[in-house]
């Protein structure tokens, strides 16, 4: 139970888990004390304190004392972690999976670098309060589709508008690497007839060629633009490519199988761009190359089936641990909307199968912040960073642990959500 007190009375203002609503909209300055603080950037601090002013962390430690007249958050018996970052979601871009009208994930066409996710994130989505209630404070909202799908945005899970939610409009450019696609379906009743391999290979080679040509065109555009000759006409697609070509924005390349991952590496080498690998189910087969190039991975779901029938049954569970041992840097993503809240349990399964516990936490906090270029603002509990915090009654990797309160930029967010509302309503049904 978290108690909010004002010195010197130390009287609990709110006794319930849902006390957050008392704070919603109030200020973002407080002194949290008596909790076990897990800064992630350093060792845990038993009986630690955090001083937050105007949404930023001013101090962290065991010996801090509370300034006068500051609001006190009593954290005795509780744990404080940095808010979790889900490094791949469709949050805000999709409300109900099967209803096209609620989906803004996939645009028409294969070359859409000009699309920006953050402008289409719905701040009123019911998924936002549900997700943050389990400690997730920021997510990558990822446009998806064949080829260049658009710009992935890093969003805080709090804000009245997209602008208030937006942390980074262009965290990365998303590219889905072409693959040789012969058909397959889990339901033989609805499976279309498979495409012959030779034909699928032809399609793949053509797609790869188009992609290379587009990058070459973008480079020529870059030169023409620099030359500023009369008659130069701006092009929004190529404009969007400039920061990628300049290495300012990473190319987030989705590649699942070894072959696609190697294609992606070759492509990144050739185009001399900064790359992040997405999903990378078979990244373990390419680990030395990833490490050598310093390419981080946004891992797909750990709780997944092995790709092939003769893969070890636990391959997706052991992959994060194997990548860690190989020195590859990674963060976790759920690539989902409604299951984003289960992010910590994806990480937990990796721990059961060999990933050190601390590394699992890092892959949802500090590593993610580094990969997305916002390590100066979030990802750990350190001076100067935003107070994106989650207060729990235990290990966030364990399902039974309750998240008592979430802070985003120092503001205690409303912990109420659709699921809890319906729970209270129907539990009370006579």
């Amino acid at each position, binding site marked *: 139970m978290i108690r909010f007190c004002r010195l010197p009375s130390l009287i609990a203002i709110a006794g319930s888990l849902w006390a957050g609503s008392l704070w919603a909209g109030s200020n973002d300055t407080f002194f949290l004390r008596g909790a076990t603080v897990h800064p992630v950037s350093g060792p845990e601090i038993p009986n630690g304190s955090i001083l937050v002013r105007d949404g930023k962390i001013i101090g962290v430690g065991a010996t801090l004392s509370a300034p006068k007249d500051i609001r006190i958050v009593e954290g005795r018996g509780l744990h404080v972690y940095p808010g979790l970052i889900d490094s791949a979601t469709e949050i805000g871009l999709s409300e109900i999976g099967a209803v096209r009208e609620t989906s803004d994930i996939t645009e028409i066409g294969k070359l859409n670098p000009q699309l920006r996710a953050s402008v289409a994130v719905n701040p009123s989505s019911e998924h936002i309060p549900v997700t943050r209630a389990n400690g997730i404070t920021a997510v990558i909202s990822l446009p998806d589709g064949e080829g260049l799908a658009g710009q992935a945005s890093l969003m805080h899970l709090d804000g009245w508008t997209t602008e208030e939610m937006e942390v980074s409009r262009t965290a990365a450019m998303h590219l889905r690497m072409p693959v040789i696609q012969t058909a397959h379906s889990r*339901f033989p009743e609805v499976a279309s007839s498979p495409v012959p391999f030779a034909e699928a290979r032809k399609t793949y080679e053509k797609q790869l060629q188009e992609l290379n040509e587009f990058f070459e065109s973008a480079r020529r555009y870059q030169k023409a633009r620099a030359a500023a000759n009369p008659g130069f006409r701006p092009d929004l697609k190529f404009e969007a490519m400039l920061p990628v070509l300049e290495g300012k924005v990473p190319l987030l390349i989705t590649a699942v199988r070894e072959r696609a991952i190697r294609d992606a590496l070759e492509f990144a080498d050739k185009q001399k761009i900064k790359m992040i690998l997405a999903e990378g189910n078979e990244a373990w087969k390419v680990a030395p190359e990833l490490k050598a190039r310093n390419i981080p991975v946004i891992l797909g779901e750990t709780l997944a089936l092995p790709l092939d029938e003769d893969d070890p049954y636990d391959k997706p569970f052991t992959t994060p641990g194997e990548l860690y041992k190989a020195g590859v840097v990674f963060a976790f993503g759920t690539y989902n909307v409604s299951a984003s809240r289960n992010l910590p349990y994806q990480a937990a399964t990796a721990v059961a199968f060999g990933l050190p516990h601390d590394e699992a936490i890092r892959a949802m906090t500090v590593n993610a912040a580094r990969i997305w270029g916002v390590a100066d603002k979030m990802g750990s509990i350190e001076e100067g960073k935003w107070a994106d915090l989650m207060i729990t009654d235990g290990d966030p990797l364990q399902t*039974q*642990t309750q998240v008592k309160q979430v802070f985003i930029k120092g503001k205690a967010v409303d912990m109420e959500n659709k699921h809890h509302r*319906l729970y209270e309503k129907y539990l009370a049904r006579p």
Partner: protein
Amino acid sequence: MKRALALAPLTALWLAAAPPLVIQNGTILTVTKGTLHGSVLIRDGKIVQVGENIKVPSGATVINAAGQFVMPGIIDCHSHIAAESINEGSVSVSSMVGIQDVLNPEDIAIYRALAGGVTTANVLHGSANAIGGKCSVIKMRWGKSADELLFAGSKPGIKFALGENPKRRGGGTAFGATTLRYPATRMGVEDVIREAFTEARAYQASWKLYDARKAKGELVIPPARDLKLEPLVEVLEGQRLVHAHCYRQDEILMLLRVADEFGFKIRTLQHVLEGYKVAKEIAAHGAGASTFSDWWAYKVEAYDAIPYNAAIMTRKGVLVSINSDSDELMRHLNNEAAKTMKYGGLTETEALSLITINPAKQLMINSQVGSIEAGKDADITIFDGHPLSNFSKVIMVLIDGQIYFDREKDLSQRPVRENRRKELISKAAEEQKRSAPASSRRPGL
């Protein structure tokens, strides 16, 4: 005599000759009789004794479970594994077909489910029709034949489906369909079920009349057999369990009332994501509820799904289980059950019951499985930590007292399998080289 013995199935011989088995020193989560530190004695595939101090019989095989957690094998009340096909979607009533005819014992999902601690599953027909095909309860006897997967003595079942899925074919020609199919609305779904049971009643009456007249010694011609209506008559007579896919509270209530009208029971409501809204009515009918832990928002009828569903229904007197409906989710039903502790505050035993004794009761196999008790089948899962912890792994699974999954063995076999795989690939490449004319050889293959 000698000859007959030699021809007896090998498994029977093995069982008869098998020494007793003792699982020792473990924390035993019996689910129905508390938790204790001790042993489980197994003989001839059955649990013989559970206790703190059990004497190891001479010649017994001993499994040392020190530091480990021993629980009943997990039961999944909704699965589609080990089936070659799932949906006979061409008709609105497909009760003439059954999963038993398409069981595939070589589906790798069986082994993967075992590795997740599952020993029994209810394998269901799909949800394309208001009244679907017949279901089969199987045990994960990996390596055995299709017939040997079947759970002996389990009651036959049938799938019903309400809502979006059965009405989809009435609203458009998705999924490769070229024609529309009745129904297109939830009203039509109710009608299909009422029409079918009206027919089934008449069919039942025609057989009753025939039997009565025949008993009197009259010379009568039997009615023509109707393979579609026979399973529905079994439902009317309480001989076949109804497992009904449903989401919204209105359709749940509709089905319960139709069942009341025709005088049969719904054994389980499957998915039943809005079950929490009509828990009282479900409990009154006596239907069980088998739900997901926390899936929601993947379609409109799942938009009001909440992770508190299992807890609310449990508190309101419904017999609840957590199911997977997924080859993947099936591998960690223990983690899914743990979510009911977070959302709604179920106790540890209540959470474990959702994946063991409760689904056993729903499938009416609880006299054989679902808990660790003397007299039950020795279907047992051993974890290296508490099964409700996310850091625990399954290390051994027994069915009928035989080891079907052993993590140590799985790990030690991996290099062997990998070598065999490489050998096969190089052999295949050789074959190809030999059989293909030189001109058609592609470089790099």
